[in-house]
């Protein structure tokens, strides 16, 4: 079971009492706004959660894993996520609790 946008809008309905249509649209807009910022070359910092950073990669040599043929991997911009300290601690603490060794 994975958390989805549907679960997230359900939670906004249950906890904040937002109507279902607004909740659904807001969840959609939340992710779209993050994508739009990244697309415009802006990193996104969500304190307590983590940062979405951008990294420019130079062209580098690569290989087709099937044929072994050499093909250059073109220069590209990629998104990386750096979890914040608060999220890392929370995950670690909870995982140790679940494993019964906290």
């Amino acid at each position: 079971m994975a958390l989805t946008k549907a679960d997230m809008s359900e939670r906004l309905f249950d906890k904040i009492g937002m109507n279902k249509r607004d909740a659904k649209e807001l969840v959609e807009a939340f992710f779209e706004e993050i994508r739009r910022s990244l697309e415009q070359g802006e990193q996104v910092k969500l304190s307590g959660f983590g940062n979405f950073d951008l990294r420019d990669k130079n062209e580098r040599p690569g290989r087709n894993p099937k044929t072994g043929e050499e093909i250059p991997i073109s220069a590209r911009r990629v998104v990386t996520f750096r979890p914040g300290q608060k999220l890392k601690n929370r995950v670690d603490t909870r995982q140790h609790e679940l494993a019964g060794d906290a």
Partner: protein
Amino acid sequence: MAKAELNHTLFLAIIEPLVTTMTKSELIEVLAHEKSDLSFKDVEAAVKALLEHMSESLADGERIEIRGFGSFSLHYRPPRTGRNPKTGAAVELAGKYVPHFKPGKELRNRVNEAAANERKPVRRSSRSATQ
């Protein structure tokens, strides 16, 4: 164009060239502007609830899957021997789980295509014509 829509377009046109980072409070402002039928307080509470829900799921070891955006999961880091940087003494570090994000196809393509357009020399054709 409706007045609210025009205001929103102007708002984005004014703030976007000025910022290279978007913070949580800026994200809340942009969303509140976009969803003008919702109160600022509701948007603020919703964004905080979303991030709380995502953190809670990850802490419980549950994946997050957002199509077109990406997925979050936990990666295991095995136990290792570290060093105290001050004393140089060896310390045993327990294995741990760390959050990991894998960008989805739409996010990857949009970011990369925008970057590729920036890299493209703008006046290539006119330059080659004069050479």
